[in-house]
């Protein structure tokens, strides 16, 4: 027994010393003689089953000492790296171009050396362990299966324990992750700076995307990095190392991109970014990844990962700027193309939609934004999204809020129509008009009278263009419908029907035509022709008649003026006056929208001209007669005030007011209002124009009434606010009530025959029985109108039911 104990002790001492010393010298291929003897000694005493535990504990004890040495050796390295990182973090904000704080070469060597030593130590200890166990197995073949397995597993088990111990180690008081992250970061920065410097010298190199060894900072630089990475792998620190360099590479790419983007939308950043990711970061990875076939596979995986990362990062950057990109459209086409490619390669759609919608709601759909601007942005959005997402699914998702918002604005249609019919100087209008010209898509929508074969061919073409919706498209929305529309049909589609649009177009057209001094309407004709292609001829028949009226007016006007006075009925001849200053626009009122009514008395000179004109017209076109609408149209005035000549284009009312001052220098307001046949406050609203122009002045002497006076010299006084806006609103409300007035007999008829009716009953009965004009108003509109009838004391409202008074 004593002999056995002695043999065991000598074995333990010898193996412990050998393990502690392992790695100091070159690893041995065979056991030293004394160790072999000690092994034989214990096996002879049947102590073999105890060997693995003893050996492992001895090896781990030796390892602990080694790790402590490694930690001590890495201390300065970690400190230097930390200092470098801190210095960089502090200075980066101010000066990103400063060279990376260099790691002294001897420290890097120390790092490599310490790692190498640890690596060799572990390697040698493992080998020694395996040899010892082998020897035990050889000398005692009668061991149980479990003991044999334990002996065989001792080597690999030690390797695992060693790796675990190393991972837990805290070199220089820092975790491996931090240390390696800083190390790799430093190395990558050095590499990218060297690459940037080399790129400056040699442009072609960047084109290759494969920087040669010449771009490495200096010879031996790459070798050291490669060694460090290899030792780390050998030490079982591969996971930590990979995590560190992955983080480094991603950060590097991100910073690179952020540095380059700078909100410049007029050039693509995706291509250069992809090229860049394939150059410097990949070169770096080539060094840190293992060589050989494993490395090649890992490198290929990394290449794909990097390009995906670039797609995602570029997409993220562009998406954040999407609103401004749309604002800059079409100059921002490169940025939109970036987004398109990013969306194709990533699944950023949802994020894109959410971000863009949010920026639209935050920045565009606000009460402060002008409707025209919103429409312009919407048009740009449509075009930009058409370029980056041909399926239209994103547009469908994004345009919802804009459309809903525009529907809520009263002047939307007016703005759209204005931009369609506006003057040529307006660039924005030009683009819309150009869209109108682009009738390729439009014809499909509205003129469906294709011959059978043609329709088939068209369907075939359509089918060929089909692409599946992106997976995250809203399935409730038909994508084909979304894709089919072009800009105009989308704008028109805001309201869901083209009728509203056409009606608004008609009233705008009427305004424009009536305010024309000449009869030239080439541009309107052109617009009309384009609209006809889009909406069909029948829908725009009225507008066509209106334009024809203008053309006819031109001709009739010339004819009327050439009618000699003698040709007109005799009894009127003595009233005939010169009508050369008068140009009439003769409208077929059935085809025109309802024209605003605004009664006032024309000065007698003007009414004489009108009646002369009418008489001559009658002699020419009997039995037709003219019914004048003197409040429409414009008057060109040459005004002489003092020694100044002024030219004005004003409404007939304004001109008539001024004419009265030809005969008298001043008018009391009430008297002038009576002469004009309007209310004094209505007169004042209009006369403010002349006061602001300095042509007239108003004065009120205490206790006396308001007097308007002709200025003998042009005066520039404080401007008086013109209540244009209020006037228009009032006019709009009056128009609405005028429309509703068509139903007043029905309402009165109902209430004559039924004592009392609630609002909804009136609404329903109107819907059912009013056919000319068909009742198309909302309950709210009817309620407002009934309220007005109540206010006018035609009806009374008691307990929710209306009665006739």
């Amino acid at each position, binding site marked *: 027994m004593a002999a056995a104990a002695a043999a065991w002790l000598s074995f333990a001492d010898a193996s412990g010393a050998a393990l502690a010393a392992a790695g100091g010298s070159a690893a041995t291929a065979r056991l030293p003689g004394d160790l072999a003897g000690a092994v034989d000694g214990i096996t002879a005493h049947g102590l073999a089953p105890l060997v693995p535990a003893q050996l492992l504990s001895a090896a781990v004890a030796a390892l602990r000492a080694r790790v402590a040495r490694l930690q001590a050796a890495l201390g300065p390295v970690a400190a230097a790296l930390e200092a470098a990182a801190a210095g960089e973090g502090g200075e980066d904000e101010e000066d990103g171009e400063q060279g990376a704080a260099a790691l002294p070469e001897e420290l890097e060597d120390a790092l490599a050396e310490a790692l190498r030593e640890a690596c060799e130590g572990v390697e040698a200890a493992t080998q020694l362990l395996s040899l010892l166990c082998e020897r035990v197995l050889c000398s005692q073949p009668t061991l149980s299966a479990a003991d044999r397995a334990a002996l065989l597993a001792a080597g690999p088990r030690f390797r695992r324990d060693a790796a675990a111990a190393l991972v837990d180690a805290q070199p220089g008081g820092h975790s491996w992750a931090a240390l390696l992250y800083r190390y790799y970061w430093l190395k990558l920065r050095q590499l990218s700076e060297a690459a940037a410097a080399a790129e400056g010298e040699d442009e072609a190199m960047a084109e290759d995307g494969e920087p040669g060894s010449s771009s490495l900072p200096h010879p031996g630089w790459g070798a050291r990095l490669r060694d460090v990475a290899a030792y780390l792998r050998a030490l079982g620190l591969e996971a930590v190392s990979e995590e560190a360099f992955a983080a480094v590479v991603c950060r590097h790419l991100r910073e690179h991109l952020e540095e380059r983007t700078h909100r410049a939308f007029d050039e693509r950043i995706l291509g250069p970014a992809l090229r860049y990711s394939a150059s410097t970061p990949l070169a770096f990875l080539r060094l840190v990844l293992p060589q050989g076939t494993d490395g090649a596979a890992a490198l290929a995986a990394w290449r794909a990962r990097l390009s995906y990362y670039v797609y995602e990062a570029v997409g993220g950057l562009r998406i954040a700027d999407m609103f401004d990109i749309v604002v800059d459209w079409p100059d921002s086409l490169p940025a939109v193309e970036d987004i398109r490619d990013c969306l194709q390669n990533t699944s950023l759609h949802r994020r894109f939609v959410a971000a863009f919608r949010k920026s639209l709601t935050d920045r565009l759909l606000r009460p402060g934004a002008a409707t025209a601007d919103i429409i312009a942005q919407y048009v740009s959005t449509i075009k930009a999204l058409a370029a980056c997402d041909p399926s239209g699914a994103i547009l469908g998702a994004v345009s919802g809020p804009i459309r809903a918002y525009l529907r809520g604005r009263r002047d939307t249609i007016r703005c759209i129509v204005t931009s369609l019919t506006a003057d040529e100087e307006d660039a924005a209008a030009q683009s819309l008009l150009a869209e109108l010209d682009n009738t390729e898509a439009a014809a499909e929508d509205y003129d469906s009278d294709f011959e059978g074969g043609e329709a088939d061919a068209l369907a075939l073409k359509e089918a060929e263009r089909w692409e599946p919706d992106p997976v995250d498209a809203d399935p409730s929305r038909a994508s084909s419908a979304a894709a089919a529309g072009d800009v105009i049909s989308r704008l028109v589609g805001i309201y869901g029907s083209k009728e509203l649009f056409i009606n608004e177009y008609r009233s705008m057209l009427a305004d424009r035509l009536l305010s024309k001094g000449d009869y030239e309407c080439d541009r309107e004709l052109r617009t009309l022709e384009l609209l006809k292609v889009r909406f069909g001829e029948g829908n725009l028949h009225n507008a066509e008649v209106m334009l024809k009226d203008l053309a006819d007016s031109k001709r009739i006007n010339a004819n009327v003026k050439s009618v000699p006075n003698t040709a007109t009925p005799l009894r009127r001849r003595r009233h005939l006056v010169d009508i050369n200053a008068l140009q009439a626009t003769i409208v077929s009122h059935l085809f025109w929208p309802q024209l605003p009514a605004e009664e006032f008395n024309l000065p007698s000179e003007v009414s004489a001209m009108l009646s002369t004109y009418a008489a001559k017209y009658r002699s020419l076109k009997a039995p037709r007669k003219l019914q004048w609408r003197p409040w429409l149209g414009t008057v060109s005035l040459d005004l002489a005030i003092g020694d100044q000549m002024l030219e004005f284009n004003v409404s007939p009312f304004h001109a008539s007011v001024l004419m009265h001052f030809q005969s008298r220098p001043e008018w009391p307001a009430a008297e002038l209002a009576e002469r004009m046949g309007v209310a004094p406050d209505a007169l004042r609203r209009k006369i403010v124009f002349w006061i602001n122009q300095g042509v007239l002045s108003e004065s009120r002497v205490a206790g006396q009434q308001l007097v308007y006076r002709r200025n003998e010299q042009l005066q520039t006084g404080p401007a008086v606010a013109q209540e244009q806006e209020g006037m228009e609103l009032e006019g709009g409300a009056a128009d609405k009530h005028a429309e509703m007035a068509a139903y007043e*007999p*029905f309402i009165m*008829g*109902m209430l*004559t*025959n*039924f004592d009392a009716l609630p609002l909804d009953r009136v609404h329903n*009965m109107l819907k*059912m*029985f009013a*056919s*000319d004009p068909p009742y198309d108003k909302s309950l709210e509109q009817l309620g407002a109108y009934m309220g007005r009838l109540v206010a006018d004391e035609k009806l009374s409202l008691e307990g929710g039911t209306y009665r006739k008074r």
Partner: protein
Amino acid sequence: MNNMAGTRPAASPGKAGVPDASRPLDTGAVTKRLQQELMSLMAGGGDGVSAFPAGDSLFDWVGTISGAEGTAYEGCTFRLSLKFTSEYPFKPPTVRFETACFHPNVDTYGNICLDILKDKWSAAYSVKTILQSIQSLLADPNVDSPLNVHAAKLWGVNDAEYRALVQKTYNQPRAS
């Protein structure tokens, strides 16, 4: 019941529109005609008569007649019901007073004895002419064939009592 030439509307039409019995029913045309009558009634305005479809159907109307000035019925507003058939305008509508009316040619149930609603009907008559006829009937009853004998006896004999009974009947709530 009997002829009442005095109550005819001024523009008496010929008999051209008498129905052809074999003519198939066409409610679409009837609806259209009633719709047009409604339109013209609404557009033409009052003259003391008015009518409007009572509810969901165009075949069921409510009419209103105000008593002509200078008659015993002045100040009274009478509500009537007009029921059209799908043979309108070739058959007259059924017209009844819904407001109680003391009148020689109106019975206590509101039935009216008026020739143009019976054998003198013509397709050229309209809701408006019917109501105008009834309005003039109020002012000018036919006492020779009364439905209300009491009224017929008082008419032209005791004006004061006649007026009082008109008002009394007008103001009493309708029994049925």
